[in-house]
């Protein structure tokens, strides 16, 4: 129901490095899950609006100023970064020349 190539492509979209064996296991598991999920095709959803979450829709605009000092957690967060320099998180270069 889902090809190994599709599974490989999804892993790439999800940014996950998976071994050949794991890809094959996922192909089998996802095949079973997708087969199970296929029952949804029977449901008559014509004219039905999707439910995107929540029961009550109400105005949620925040009253007043931002409740936190933007730098309140700096120290606690900084020491958890895998790589840091001064007060910055080191991120890899993403734009090539």
């Amino acid at each position: 129901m889902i090809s190994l190539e599709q599974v490989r492509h999804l892993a790439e979209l999800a940014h996950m490095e998976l071994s050949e064996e794991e890809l094959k296991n996922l192909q089998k598991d996802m095949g079973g899950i997708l087969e199970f999920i296929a029952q949804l095709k029977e449901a008559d959803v014509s004219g039905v609006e999707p439910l995107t979450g929540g029961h009550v829709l109400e105005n949620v605009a925040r009253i007043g100023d931002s409740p936190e000092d933007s730098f309140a957690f700096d120290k606690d967060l900084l020491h958890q970064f895998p790589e840091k320099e001064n007060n910055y998180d080191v991120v890899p270069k993403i734009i090539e020349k």
Partner: protein
Amino acid sequence: MELEKLTIIKAAKLLQEKQISAVELIKLYLERIRQKESELDAFLYVAEKEALAKAEEVDLKRKRGDKLGVLAGIPYSLKDLILFEGMQATAGSKILEGYKASYDATVVLRLKQADAVCLGKTNCDEFAMGASTEQSAFKVTKNPWDTTRVPGGTSGGSAAAVAGNMCLFSLCTDTGGSTRQPASFCGVVGLRPSYGAVSRHGVIAIASSLDQVGCLAKTVEDAALVFETIAGKDELDSTTSSKAFYRGLSENLQKPLDFKKLKIGLPKEFFEIGGIDPDVKNLILKSVDCFKQQGAEVLEINLPHMKYSVPAYYIINSAEISANLARYDGIRYPISNRDEASGFREIYYKTKGHGFGPEPRRRIMLGTFSLSSGYYDAYYSRAQKVRSLIKQDFIKAFEGVDLIMGPVSPYPAFKIGEKMNDPVSMYLADIYTGLVNMACLNGLSVPCGFVERENKKLPVGLQIIGNYFNEELVLRVGNSFEQEHNYLNQTAE
């Protein structure tokens, strides 16, 4: 002191009357954790120092005559998915090892204001995906009633800790049944509040349109008190509703109920679905009959779209998971495989590939699939429409009844390892609980008896589902049921 017989209400009385100090009580619980932990594997972190410091503070406040919170000195545990400043929060995953919370979740802050004492962080399925706590990256929690069986999940560590008398209550989460199902398996009370009733600020996001903070306790009265303490509008979580107003709830609990005015709905579909254990079915029907004998009217109702609930749930759940878990990319949390990587893409690939366990990987892949171009309409969008239909079924049902009752789980606690190789069979464990989350409703699991398996007694929970933000009625009816029966006086071992 017999911790087996202690409840929040009883412990609070002992503390108020100074029959025991908070430090003495906390030491008893820490000692119990030391004794039981190797057998049950409920905790991922025991906060001994922090707990004793808080207990000393409570004792000092009491000595000085300061005002104390409603949960002063009461020991609790916290699912390792909820942030407590300075403590770990792994969500049961290797990818969050080494991370320490830099702030308190709103629910934790409210418990701190109520002077409750946190004993530590409990085990759970990795990122709350599973139904048995076997998917934790760290250890497998055991059911206190039979240690060869699972405690349920995903809040299995929390349920085992309460049932094993290692704390008086536990805060956890419920995305598809993660509070109610372990409550049923471990013979404790579990409340999943309405969507929007409790703040999720500081709770690790799993599937944001389904997640809600739940509580596990030994009695309905205890659960009501905890719920009242943590519930209500929070400026830091825009999904909390102004309808979430519960002041006075625990006092109203003891008000007499006029059962003659109570209409209980029993969904026909609940008992037609294959796979329900006949002994569980009998217990549920027997429990509903108790209400009938007290004068309640029991009506058969229909939830025609129930059969689509589990498949639609897994599409929505995995889609939201694939989005929420994208942040664990090796850039801002301690775990990173950047040393083996060249270029930013490889950092993502390697960190995620190594850091996530099998179930998160499956869900991320499934979510990526249903959100990807060409499949979105057939899967994700269709699932959201089916979700609307499920919600409409409930709204229609509640026009004719006050409450809906049924099983929590189709079967009692299963054996460790029994369902690990079959994801679909594990997903079906949510059949009676997930649809409550799909409809944004609330549900309570209350012990309703035992079944016997291999000469061991295994608890079974009755599910009471309430209308939007009407947790009060659910808890009052649950409380009355509990007082009519003596299941709560029975404890594991």
